[in-house]
C-alpha cells in the first residue's frame, strides 16, 4: 500500500473550518481527497456518506470525476476502512463501494476499445450522474423543508386557559347488531365446550317474566287474575302464563293457593331464613 501523503491544508479564507485537527484548521476538503485519520470522526459527521462527499467534491471543488486519482483514493479509503471497522463498519463499507465504483469507471475508460465497435457502450458515468443528480435534488428539498416555517419553532399554538372546564365522559355508541354479534360469538364459543340443549322461545316470554317480577318486586301477593290482562287476548294470557311457569321453575316465584279451588296468589319467593 502506498504511503499516505501528508495533509496539505489550504490557507484559511473561510472563518469556519470544517475540521480542526491538533489545533490546525481545515477549511476545505483537500484536493487530493486525503483526510487525516484523526479527522475521520469530524469528517464522517460533515458528510452524509460517499455520495454526499462526491457531490461536494464535484460541486464545490470542481472535481472532474475522470480526474480522480483512483489508486490514491483507493489506498486512502482502505486505510479509513481499517479505522472505521471499530465504530462505523457499515459506513466504511459504503465508502468502499463508492471507491470501487469510481475505479471501475476509470478502468473502463482506460481499456482500449475496437474503433469499429457498432454497439456503443453506455457512458459508464451515466449511472453515477443519475445518482448524484437525484441526490442533489433531495439534498435541496431537505434544505427547503428546513427553511419552511414550522409549528413550535416559527409558529406557536395558543393554549388559553378555560376556567370551569368540565370534562364529560361520552360513552361509546352501541348498535343492536353489536349486541347480536356479541351474543352469537359467545354462543359459538360456549358451544365448543358444552352441548346445551337448543331451546327457542319467544322474547315476549322473557319480557313478561321481567314485567311480572317488576309488579311483585315488593314481596306483595298478587292475585293471578290481576296479572292477566284479558285485553291482550288469548295470546297475551298464554305469554303471561308461560312467563309465570318459567319464573316458578327458576325458583323466583311461588304460587300460593290457601284453600282448594280458592284464588291463586303469586308472590316472589320468600328468603328461606335458617333453611339449613
Amino acid at each position, binding site marked *: 500500500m502506498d504511503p499516505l501523503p501528508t495533509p496539505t491544508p489550504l490557507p484559511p479564507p473561510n472563518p469556519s473550518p470544517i475540521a480542526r485537527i491538533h489545533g490546525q484548521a481545515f477549511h476545505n476538503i483537500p484536493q487530493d481527497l486525503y483526510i487525516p485519520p484523526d479527522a475521520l470522526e469530524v469528517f464522517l459527521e460533515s458528510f452524509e456518506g460517499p455520495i454526499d462527499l462526491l457531490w461536494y467534491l464535484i460541486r464545490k471543488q470542481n472535481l472532474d470525476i475522470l480526474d480522480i486519482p483512483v489508486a490514491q483514493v483507493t489506498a486512502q479509503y482502505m486505510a479509513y476502512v481499517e479505522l472505521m471497522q471499530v465504530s462505523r463498519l457499515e459506513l466504511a463499507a459504503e465508502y468502499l463501494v463508492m471507491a470501487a465504483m469510481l475505479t471501475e469507471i476509470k478502468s473502463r475508460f482506460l481499456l482500449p476499445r475496437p474503433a469499429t465497435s457498432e454497439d456503443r457502450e453506455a457512458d459508464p458515468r451515466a449511472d453515477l450522474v443519475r445518482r448524484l443528480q437525484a441526490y442533489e435534488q433531495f439534498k435541496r428539498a431537505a434544505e427547503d423543508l428546513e427553511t419552511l416555517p414550522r409549528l413550535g419553532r416559527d409558529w406557536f399554538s395558543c393554549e388559553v386557559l378555560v376556567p370551569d372546564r368540565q370534562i364529560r365522559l361520552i360513552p361509546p355508541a352501541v348498535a343492536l347488531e353489536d349486541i347480536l354479534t356479541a351474543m352469537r360469538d359467545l354462543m359459538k364459543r360456549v358451544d365448543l365446550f358444552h352441548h346445551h340443549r337448543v331451546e327457542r322461545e319467544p322474547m*315476549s316470554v322473557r319480557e313478561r317474566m321481567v314485567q311480572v317480577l317488576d309488579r311483585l318486586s315488593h314481596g306483595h301477593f298478587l292475585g293471578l287474575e290481576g296479572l292477566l290482562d284479558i285485553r291482550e287476548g288469548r295470546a297475551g294470557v298464554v305469554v303471561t302464563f308461560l312467563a309465570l311457569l318459567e319464573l316458578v321453575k327458576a325458583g323466583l316465584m311461588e304460587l300460593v293457593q290457601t284453600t282448594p279451588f280458592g284464588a291463586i296468589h303469586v308472590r316472589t319467593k320468600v328468603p328461606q331464613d335458617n333453611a339449613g
Partner: protein
Amino acid sequence: MPDDTLKAIVEAALAAAGGALSVERILELFDDTDRPDPAAVEQALLTLQTEYRDRGLELVEIASGYRLQVPRRYAPWISRLWDEKPARYSRALMETLALIVYRQPITRPEIEDIRGVAVTSHIIKTLLEREWVRVIGHRETPGRPALYATSRVFLDEFGLKSLDQLPKLSASDPLPSLAPTEIPMPLALDQGI
C-alpha cells in the same frame, strides 16, 4: 418599538404562554437593546383588556400577573373540546349485555357460568350507570344474587317498542339453556283461570 408591535408581542405571549405572565416576565422576552418601558407594557395590557371586551377571550389580572382566558360564560361550549370518548366497550361488557338482553332476567353467577369467566363489578356498574340494565329482584339462592333485566331506557335508546323487536338469533345459533327441563304440567293451576 412601535406601540402596535409591542401590543402584538404581548398578545402573542399571553396566548402562547397558557398561563399568567407578569410584567417582568414579559420584559424578559426583549433584548436589552429593544426592551420597552414597564409602563409601555402596562399600557399595552390595558389596551388589550379593552379590545377583548365582549369577545371570545378576556384578559384578567390575577396575583401572578395577567392571563388571557376564555370567559366563564363560554365554558359550557368550550369544555366539550375535551369530551372523553372511550373507543369501544370490551368484549366482556358486550357479552354480558347480550346475555342480559337475550336471557333476562339473569343473575351474575349465571352470566359467569355461561361465559366461563368472572364478570367484573365494573362491567355491571357501567351497564347500570348507562341505565340500560336494572336490578328487578333477587334470586332466592345462596347469596341472593341480583336479577338483571333491560330497562325502558334500553328500549328507547335502541328504538325498540318491545324486546320482541330485537334482532333474532338465527336458528343455527345454539342457545344455551340455563335450566333445560321440561315445562311442568300446569295441572294445579288450570282451574285458576
